[in-house]
C-alpha cells in the first residue's frame, strides 16, 4: 500500500445548513463506519461540500466520477449504498431522484431539470469543492483573478472591466457596481473601507448564506479585488449571528488565506495590503441597509441616516466606504478572468449575468437556483422548480421579500430582470421567491409581511413606525371579519404615504406587499370585507365550516382527521360538521381533496 491512497470514488455530501438539518452529518458518520467495516476507507473519499441547492431533497450524496445523484439518504440506506454501488457498482435505484416530469428515475445530475437548466457563475463551485479547503478553491481558478488584477491591471482597469460587465448590486438596489467603485476611488481620504453585506434578512431568502458557507473564498477574493480597485486596505464582512456555520467557515477561510499571504501585507509579493475582519450582526433587518449597517459595525445603534453624504464619500467612521452584497462579490472572480464582455453577453439589455434565487413555498423543488437574467418566472417555477405540489394550481409568487410584491397567475411569462419586475410592481430584492398556490390567502400573506415590517422597523421615522402598525391593524380587522367598505382605499392611501415619505429604502418599500396584493387580488379583499368569506379558506373567522353536498365524495377523510370529533360521517353518507364542537382548526379543509368544505 502506498502512503497517499488513491481514491477511486469521491462521495460529495452536502453540508449546508439545510442538509445538516435534515441529517447529513448522521449519514456521513454511518458512511464512515460502513466503509471502515468493509475496509474501503482508502478507496472511497467523503468530501463535505457547501449547499448543493436542492435543499428539498436532502441529505444529498453525489458519487463521482459517474455523477450519480442520491437524494433523501438516511443512515439506514448506507449499508445498501456501500454494498451495491461502492462494492458491486450497481446504482441503488430507489434512492435516485424522481423527476415528476419524466417517467422513471433519472440517475445523472446533468439530466435533472433542476440542475440542467441552471447557469452557474456565482455558484460555480457548489457541491464540487470542500468548502474548508483553500487548495480546492485554488484548483478551480480561485485567487487567479486577484493575481491577474494585481499583476496585469491597474485599479482603474479593474473598475473599467467591472463597468463593462454591467454587473449591478445583487442585494436588491441594482446599482451598477463599477460606478460605485469608481466614485469611491475618486476620494483621496484614507483609510478607505470595503464592506460585504451578509445581513440577509428577507423571510425565505438563503442565497448569501449558501455562498458564504459553500464557497467562502469567492467572497474574500471579490472583496480583495474591490479593495485593490478603490484603494482600501481593510474590509469587513457583516454577517448576521444567525448564520453560525457561515461565520465559522468564513473565519477558517480568512485564516487560511492569511497564512498563504492572500490576505495581509504585500499580497502575492505585489505590494498590496488588504485584510478582512468579520463583524457579526445581531439579526436586525434594518442593518441590511447600508448606513445602518455601518453604524452597527461602529458599535452604534443600527439606524439609517440621511444621504448625502453617500457612503462612498463618508461611510464607515466617516471614511470613504464601498459596500456590496455577498453575491456581487462572488461574481468578480469570473468577471476578471473571463472579461467584462463575456459577462455582459449573458442576460438582458440592462440586467447582465445571472441571479441566484431561493425558491420556497408551494413548489416541489425547494432550493437554491441560479439562472441567467431574463429567464421567465414560468421557467423558474415550473421547469426548474418542478411546479406546484399536490396537483394544486399556481396563484402568485412573492418576489423581493417584505419590500417586494407579488406576481399573479397570468403574468408568469414576465422575464426576471430589474426593470421588468419593477414594471409589474415587484422588485428583484435579494432573490427570495415565495411560491403560493390556491390555498394561500393574499390578504393573510400581505398581513404576514406587514407584521414582519412592523417588527423590524427601526422606529426612526413616523410613516414606517406608526403607519405600518395602522396598516397591520386594519389588515387584522379584515381577516377577523371586521372589515368595512373603504378599508381598501384607506390601505392604498396610507401605503402610498408610507412609500413616499419614509426615510430609508426599507420603509419606502414596506407597503409594497399590501399594495401589490390589492392591485392583483382586489376581489379577495372585497370578499373578506363584503361577503365575510375567505376564498382561499385560510382566515378561520371567515369560513362557514359547512360541507358542500354536491362536492363531497363521502370519503371520510375529514372525519378521520378531525381532532375534536366534530364531524359526523358514515360510509356512503355526506359528512356533516357539528359547529358546537368545531374548533375551526382547518384540519378538515387541508385534508379534503375535493374542496368540499366551505
Amino acid at each position, binding site marked *: 500500500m502506498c502512503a497517499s491512497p488513491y*481514491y477511486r470514488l469521491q462521495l460529495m455530501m452536502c453540508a449546508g445548513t439545510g442538509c445538516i438539518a435534515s441529517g447529513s452529518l448522521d449519514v456521513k458518520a454511518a458512511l464512515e463506519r460502513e466503509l471502515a467495516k468493509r475496509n474501503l476507507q482508502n478507496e472511497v473519499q467523503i468530501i463535505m461540500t457547501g449547499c448543493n441547492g436542492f435543499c428539498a431533497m436532502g441529505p444529498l450524496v453525489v458519487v463521482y466520477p459517474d455523477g450519480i445523484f442520491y437524494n433523501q439518504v438516511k443512515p439506514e440506506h448506507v449499508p445498501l449504498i456501500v454494498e451495491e454501488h461502492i*462494492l*458491486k*457498482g450497481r446504482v441503488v435505484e430507489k434512492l435516485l431522484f424522481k423527476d415528476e416530469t419524466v417517467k422513471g428515475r433519472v440517475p445523472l445530475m446533468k439530466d435533472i431539470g433542476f440542475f440542467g437548466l441552471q447557469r452557474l457563475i456565482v455558484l460555480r463551485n457548489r457541491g464540487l469543492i470542500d468548502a474548508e479547503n483553500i*487548495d480546492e478553491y485554488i*484548483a478551480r481558478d480561485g485567487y*487567479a483573478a486577484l*493575481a491577474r488584477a494585481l499583476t496585469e491591471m491597474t485599479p482603474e482597469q479593474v473598475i473599467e472591466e467591472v463597468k463593462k460587465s454591467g454587473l449591478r448590486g445583487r442585494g436588491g438596489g441594482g446599482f451598477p457596481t463599477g460606478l460605485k467603485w469608481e466614485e469611491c476611488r475618486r476620494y483621496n481620504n484614507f483609510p478607505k473601507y470595503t464592506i460585504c453585506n451578509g445581513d440577509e434578512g428577507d423571510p425565505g431568502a438563503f442565497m448569501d448564506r449558501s455562498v458564504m458557507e459553500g464557497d467562502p473564498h469567492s467572497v474574500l477574493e471579490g472583496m480583495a479585488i474591490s479593495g485593490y480597485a478603490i484603494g482600501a486596505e481593510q474590509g469587513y464582512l457583516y454577517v448576521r449571528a444567525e448564520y453560525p456555520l457561515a461565520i465559522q467557515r468564513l473565519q477558517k477561510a480568512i485564516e487560511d488565506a492569511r497564512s*498563504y499571504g492572500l490576505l495581509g501585507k504585500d499580497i502575492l509579493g505585489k505590494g498590496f495590503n488588504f485584510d478582512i475582519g468579520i463583524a457579526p450582526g445581531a439579526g436586525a433587518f434594518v442593518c441590511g441597509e447600508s448606513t445602518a449597517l455601518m453604524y452597527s459595525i461602529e458599535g452604534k445603534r443600527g439606524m439609517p441616516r440621511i444621504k448625502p453624504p453617500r457612503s462612498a464619500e463618508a461611510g464607515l467612521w466617516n471614511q470613504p466606504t464601498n459596500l456590496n452584497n455577498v453575491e456581487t462579490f462572488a461574481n468578480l472572480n469570473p468577471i476578471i478572468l473571463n472579461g467584462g464582455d463575456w459577462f455582459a453577453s449573458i442576460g438582458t439589455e440592462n440586467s447582465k449575468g445571472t441571479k441566484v434565487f431561493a425558491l420556497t413555498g408551494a413548489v416541489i423543488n425547494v432550493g437554491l437556483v441560479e439562472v441567467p437574467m431574463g429567464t421567465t418566472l414560468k421557467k423558474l417555477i415550473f421547469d426548474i422548480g418542478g411546479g406546484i405540489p399536490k396537483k394544486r394550481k399556481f396563484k402568485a409568487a412573492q418576489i423581493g421579500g417584505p419590500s417586494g410584491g407579488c406576481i399573479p397567475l397570468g403574468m408568469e411569462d414576465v422575464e426576471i430582470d430589474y426593470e421588468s419586475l419593477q414594471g409589474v410592481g415587484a422588485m428583484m430584492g435579494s432573490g427570495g421567491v415565495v411560491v403560493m398556490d390556491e390555498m394561500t390567502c393574499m390578504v393573510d400573506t400581505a398581513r404576514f409581511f406587514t407584521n414582519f415590517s412592523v417588527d423590524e422597523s427601526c422606529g426612526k421615522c413616523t410613516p414606517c413606525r406608526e403607519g405600518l402598525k395602522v396598516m397591520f391593524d386594519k389588515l387584522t380587522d379584515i381577516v377577523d371579519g371586521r372589515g368595512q367598505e373603504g378599508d381598501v382605499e384607506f390601505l392604498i392611501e396610507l401605503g402610498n404615504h408610507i412609500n413616499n415619505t419614509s426615510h430609508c429604502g426599507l420603509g419606502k418599500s414596506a407597503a409594497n406587499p399590501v399594495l401589490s396584493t390589492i392591485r392583483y387580488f382586489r376581489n379577495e379583499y372585497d370578499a373578506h370585507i363584503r361577503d365575510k368569506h375567505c376564498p382561499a379558506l385560510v382566515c378561520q373567522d371567515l369560513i362557514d365550516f359547512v360541507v358542500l353536498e354536491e362536492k363531497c365524495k363521502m370519503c371520510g377523510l375529514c372525519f378521520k382527521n378531525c381532532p375534536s370529533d366534530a364531524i359526523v360521517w358514515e360510509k356512503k353518507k355526506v359528512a356533516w360538521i357539528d359547529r358546537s364542537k368545531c374548533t375551526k382548526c382547518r384540519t378538515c379543509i387541508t385534508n379534503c381533496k375535493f374542496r368540499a368544505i366551505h
Partner: protein
Amino acid sequence: MPRISIEDLKRIKEEQTGKMVLRGGQFRAKVTVHMGTCGIAAGAREVMNVFRETIAEKEIQDVILTNSGCAGLCAKEPMITVEVINSAPVKYILVDKEKARKIFEEHVLGGKVVEDYALAIGSETMAV
C-alpha cells in the same frame, strides 16, 4: 502554511486538479472493473487493488478507476473494460493480477490493446 507566490498558485492548482479529476469529468482513460457477485467471487477485488496500487505508485492523475455490475458473461470473470479517450472501449476477460499489470502498462498508459486478453471492442450494450 507558507506565504505563496503567483507561481505557487499555479502549482497548487495543478496538484489539486489531479485530486479533483473524478469530479471534473476530464480524464484520459477510464478503467472499469466489473464487480457483480460473480466478478468478486472470481477475484475482481484483487484486480481492482492492482489498479489502485499502480495508480497511486506512479502518481497518475488522468486515469479514473471505477466499478460496475456484472457484464453478463459470468463465465469469463473477472472482466474489465478499458476506455481510452477518443477510442472505443475494450473488454478484457479472465483478468488476474499479472494480466492487470500488463493491461495497465500497455493499454492504459501505452494506448495499445493487449489483444491476447481482449474479448471484444465495444460495450455490452452497443457494438462498435
